[in-house]
């Protein structure tokens, strides 16, 4: 099996998984108490509007027909009408996707890289105070309650020392000023992203560090490490060229497996820092009983996680020839 068929296979799996998820959502909606369409209808709507929505969703027709309409609407990116915003769901969500991806991917990638780097050091200096310090720090940051960590960061760095903004993604004055160049705007976003990024980073890097440390210790006992040492390689090269590429593999796997966990954290962080992403939109939609918006946000997040999973798998296949050349 080469890389192409591998990617193709995984992509088909993603499409199937996604299909299962959206079908489940459809049937759960029918199973939930009350009329299904009541979730799409707001008390402020006029009778005409209600009739229109019922017709659009085919609610007067058979459930199978409704299902087909549901799928068709999703394909057309028509997620329905958000009562809270009073606009189409897609219009609410579309410019939030990038914000979520920005925060999510940077924090996952940076924490994995730092975890691998520090885990390597911890394994290399095992049973020293440095190792103990890194291990304890990882245990603590990895199990800290994320929203609380966010609140602490806001309190300390945002409020007490006024180093970073308390919330949001940009300063309106800067973005409205036509004079401001791209760099200025980018720096402004980074300034806003610092604390949410930091809290996600702190939560994640410890897990990767601990995993990398164990994986590295296991790898160092492998026979090919002995071979490398026998060949007269420098210790540095043994670690970097032979141990690292093997020891990092389980970490990459775990990045994939923990993506769902990471996106949970992403939604919490977005909420705490008022970061305008899909996760926060989902949380708010649920508190506003805005079901169409909640459903769309959830489906989008599911897509993001599924695709990220494929990317991780491709990366893994790229790093491990045993997968690439089956």
């Amino acid at each position: 099996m080469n890389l192409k068929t591998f990617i193709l296979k995984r992509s088909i799996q993603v499409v199937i998984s996604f299909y299962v998820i959206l079908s489940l959502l459809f049937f759960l909606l029918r199973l939930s108490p009350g009329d299904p369409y009541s979730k799409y209808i707001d008390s402020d709507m006029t009778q005409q509007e209600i009739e229109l929505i019922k017709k659009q969703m085919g609610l007067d027709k058979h459930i199978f027909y409704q299902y087909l309409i549901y799928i068709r609407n999703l394909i057309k990116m028509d997620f329905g009408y958000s009562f809270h915003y009073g606009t189409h769901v897609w219009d609410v969500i579309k410019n939030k996707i990038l914000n979520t991806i920005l925060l999510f991917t940077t924090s996952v990638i940076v924490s994995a890289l730092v975890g691998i780097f520090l885990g390597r050091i911890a394994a290399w200096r095992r049973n020293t105070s440095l190792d103990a310090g890194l291990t304890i720090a990882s245990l603590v940051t990895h199990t800290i309650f994320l929203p609380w960590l966010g609140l602490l960061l806001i309190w300390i760095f945002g409020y007490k020392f006024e180093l970073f903004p308390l919330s949001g993604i940009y300063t309106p004055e800067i973005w409205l000023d036509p004079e401001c160049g791209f760099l200025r705007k980018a720096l402004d976003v980074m300034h806003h992203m610092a604390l949410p990024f930091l809290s996600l980073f702190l939560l994640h890097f410890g897990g990767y560090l601990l995993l990398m440390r164990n994986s590295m210790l296991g790898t160092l006992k492998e026979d090919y490490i002995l071979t490398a040492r026998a060949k007269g390689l420098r210790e540095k090269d043994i670690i970097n060229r032979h141990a690292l590429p093997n020891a990092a593999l389980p970490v990459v796997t775990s990045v994939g497996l923990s993506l769902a966990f990471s996106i949970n954290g992403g939604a919490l962080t977005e909420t705490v820092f008022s970061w305008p992403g899909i996760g926060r939109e989902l949380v708010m939609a649920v508190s506003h009983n805005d079901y169409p918006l909640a459903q769309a946000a959830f489906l989008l997040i599911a897509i993001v996680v599924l695709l990220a999973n494929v990317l991780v798998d491709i990366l893994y296949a790229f790093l491990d020839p045993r997968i690439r050349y089956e």
Partner: protein
Amino acid sequence: MSELGFEGKGPLREAWELFLESSIGKAGLIILSIFALMAIFSFVPPMIDPMYHPMKGVDPEITTSQPPSLRHWLGTDFMGRDILSQLLAGARVAFLVGITAALMSIILGTFLGMLAGYFGGVVDTLLMRTADVIMVLPTLLVILVLASLFKGLSIWSIVIIIALFRWPGVSRVIRAQTLSLKNRPFVEAAKALGASHLRIMMRHLLPNLVPLAFLYMTFRVTAAIVIEAALAFLGFGDPTTVSWGMMLQWVWKTGHMFKAPYWLLPPGICISLITLSFYMIGRAMEQVLDPRLRKDWEG
């Protein structure tokens, strides 16, 4: 002693001794027992004075959040409710949610994993593909969507949903273990003797799978506690119970986070520490169960 010797310790005893060798495991146990004490003491305050009822008890003399005092050791919240009593009640909820959800997901995961591994074929494919789909779903967000569908969830429905979405990880491990046990001589022998599938699974496979399941249980406990806390923090907890997550939500939503550290710190510390303690115990158990992680000589 005698020639017969008392060296042959039971496997449990040996595992326990190995566990105690790990300082991480010991530290975890100590922290955990403090929380257990808190949970037990949560039954005490209301007996002294209804003012200390974590949910309904309001100090009549206090109308705003108050810093710690002799009367209220950790201060009060914005309605004049005692924070310490809430904290103690939160410990009870954390244990309840964590342990029941973990136990349920472990039982589910063990059985499904064993079925998949033992029968293979269609059963296996079906169960494992389902597991794959569930695994990529962010549990917290799923519960949020369900909460919006069912208009609020009680603590028990939260527990059940957590269990339903947390079995795949365990079942994969159990399945792999079942596959390797399935072809061992003792199982083959039982088969040859005409034992039924049920009997083979219950008598021969399950006892060998339980230790592994137990290891996963500690990690599941942390996951369940964190999910419940996060849900409560976002305002979708069970409104009839006080949990640490809910306490944090109150600090946050009533705008006290910059002015009432005595209220902001304790619940967060508790959630983080109880998670940490279960996590540490899990890691120590991992070392007991996985000989590769053991240090068998001096460093």
